[in-house]
């Protein structure tokens, strides 16, 4: 019997109570928000629990919401239960001034580079990561390029001399 979203929700609520919020099911995938200090406890609980068995970290990345003061950076985890073939997603929010989130590398080897990528582009500081350095950008870079305050070049700008490029 496939694992239903309601069952997952009930089990998580039993364990963590009111700490988990914003339950949604966009396009069928159970999504919730958790306090950032609980992220490892939730991952471990989802991993260990015989009924839930979310033991595959599909994806880990961040999103920047500059208008959401105090919780600008969202770190999003996508987990997959390969036995029952159910996916869930959960988010933790961090303050951009102090973006400390616990690292999942002890539980998932695959989190290593995914967290490095997230650090590289958003500056999320993963506490407990064995080697938190930039992975895709150059090491000398002193900003986090995927944050929203760094826009792409405006295509309609006129102050630039593009004669050489035939635009």
């Amino acid at each position, binding site marked *: 019997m496939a694992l239903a979203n309601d069952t997952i929700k009930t089990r998580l609520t039993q364990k963590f109570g009111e700490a988990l919020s914003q339950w949604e099911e966009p396009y069928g995938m159970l999504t919730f928000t958790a306090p950032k200090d609980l992220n490892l406890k939730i991952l471990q609980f989802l991993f260990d629990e015989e009924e839930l068995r979310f033991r595959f970290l*599909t994806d880990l*990345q961040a999103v920047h919401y500059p208008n959401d003061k105090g919780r600008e950076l969202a770190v999003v985890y996508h987990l997959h239960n390969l036995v029952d*073939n159910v996916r869930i997603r959960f988010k933790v929010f961090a303050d951009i001034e102090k973006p400390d989130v616990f690292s999942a590398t002890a539980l998932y*080897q*695959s989190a290593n580079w995914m967290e490095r990528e997230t650090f590289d582009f958003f500056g999320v500081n993963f506490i407990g990561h064995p080697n938190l350095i930039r992975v895709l*950008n150059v090491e000398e870079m002193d900003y986090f390029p995927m944050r929203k305050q760094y*826009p*792409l070049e405006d295509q309609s700008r006129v102050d630039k001399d593009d004669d050489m490029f035939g635009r």
Partner: protein
Amino acid sequence: MTDKTTDHIALPEGSIEKKTNTLNLGPTHPATHGVFQNVLEMDGERIISATSTVGYIHRAFEKIAERRPLYQIQPLTDRLNYCSSPLNNIGWQLTCEKLLGIKTPKRVDYLRVIIMELARISDHLICNSIVGVDSGAYTGFLYVMQYREMIYEIYEEVCGARLTTNIGRIGGFERNFTPKAWKRLEDFLDEKTGYPAQLREFENLFTRNRIFMDRTIGCGPISAERALNYGFTGPNLRAAGVDYDVRVHTPYSSYQDFDFTIPVGTTGDCYDRFLVRNQEMWQSLHILKQAYKKIQEFKGAEAEVYHADSPEFYLPDKKDVYTKMEALIYHFKIIMGETEMPKGEVYNSIEGANGELGYYLISDGGRTPYRLHFRRPCFIYYQAYPELIKGGMLSDAVITMSSLNLIAGELDA
């Protein structure tokens, strides 16, 4: 150095010399097939540790995508895994369709399956024949190369391009398959003169070849548990014995209508990965035949359908643009990227040629994605490379890298 593995090397008392050598393999090295750098710590010819450096061809696709309407992101996906661009293209279209709620007709699904399976074959045949090249057997590579050419000619007939295809559109294909395209597909599938015969020949050259077996068996192995922990997907995970395939677990594009099996290996070494890929090519050929048969069963108006009815996102016919007001408006809005998309977040994945290729798309109701993330399978499983090659020979490291099917474009996004 206090590393136990080098204790057998005796250096004179008080020597400050290292017991190991540092070897820089890459970023441009003939044996790495792409821009990969590995700094290896070597004891003679044995690898003690490795550090991978990636990012040499990082092009910030995720950032660029935040300024582009959906249809303009598709050419970016071409450049992820460029050995099988149509898979990336169609994966992206399926993601957009999921967000926009577009339902595609069955015929479109089957046409897509044909293109996707051709792409899978073209990717696997390159990977497997390169494993052959790296183990010293160049012939197989030359044998199968002309069949990739045949696949590229089919792409060419469908969309006009060969490598970075930008094939299809949100909702379907930009034009129907021509009779020439079907002819080429028939030629490709022909049992006697087409790819099946060649693949059999290729297998004869390699599968029970003593030299090839000695070179690949036990080379770069990984257990199922480690593979899952490292986030392996695709043929590399299946070679380790886990039968996870997105086509079966979460069928998309009507894969549930097809009959095929998932080949699995046991040890997860280079040889198993090779066998799994070969077997997958046979399964792909099997799917292609079924899809071709199903396509021929469509009669009347249904047999001409090649796109969904979604005027807001699918470009209207050119003659309608010139004669109909509504079509002109849609044409303008699509080209200028002025169509708002619904608010929402969607994760959609397909079985790419080297693993689960995922697209995580967040829309805030604007014209461009708020955030787009590509789950690139190679980026995730390349982390395991130092563990796979540790303790092995340098030449094993080369063959392990090619059998993992790493594509630099996908790795660095």
